[in-house]
């Protein structure tokens, strides 16, 4: 079946260090969405990538969509304690509108 893999599962960084999470799909995606979930909270939409090779930035966050539209990454520059949470990628396949979530990367930032 269609699977979205995400690594690493956990990442613990010192405040100020960079962080990257990677997402890989077994099949080509129509688009990919990134969400952040705080402990006890709900997934909050961050960004959507649609085009092959697309790069989008939101302040310290940089999102990339691979040329083959099968992989994506989220990079955070100079992490802050407010970045703590679990970051999920979620892919939409050409066959429908169901988001296929990765397992998420839980980020812990210590001051």
């Amino acid at each position, binding site marked *: 079946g269609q699977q979205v893999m995400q690594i690493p599962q956990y990442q613990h960084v010192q405040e100020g260090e960079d962080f990257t999470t990677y997402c890989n799909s077994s099949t080509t995606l*129509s*688009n990919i*969405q990134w*969400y952040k979930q705080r402990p006890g*909270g*709900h*997934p*909050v*939409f961050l960004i*959507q990538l*649609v085009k092959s090779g697309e790069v989008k930035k939101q302040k310290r966050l940089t999102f990339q969509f691979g040329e083959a539209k099968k992989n994506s990454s989220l990079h955070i520059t100079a992490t802050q304690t407010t970045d703590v949470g679990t970051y*999920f990628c*979620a892919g*939409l396949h050409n066959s*429908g*509108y*169901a*988001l*296929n*979530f*990765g*397992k*998420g990367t839980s980020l812990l930032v210590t001051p």
Partner: protein
Amino acid sequence: EPEVTQTPSHQVTQMGQEVILRCVPISNHLYFYWYRQILGQKVEFLVSFYNNEISEKSEIFDDQFSVERPDGSNFTLKIRSTKLEDSAMYFCASSLAGYQPQHFGDGTRLSIL
């Protein structure tokens, strides 16, 4: 900013009982979804709904599950005879169109005893 609202925030039910989870999607959105997240695990798709009918459903969404849009604002998920393994956080989401970003509600934590 408009948001998806879900009630109740927490539902405790005896195994075998019926439960209805309620959602009010964002008012101008046309596509509605239910997802669930078992504690510590990833978010899993259950069902999508458009134009008053199910457009897609997962293997999890078996005959015990049903969805309904009883009026112009509510979107409900019913589980007919709950099982212990139905315990999870259930999220409702909506989107303007099928390929547009999906916006999630705060969720309903369902605990089956």
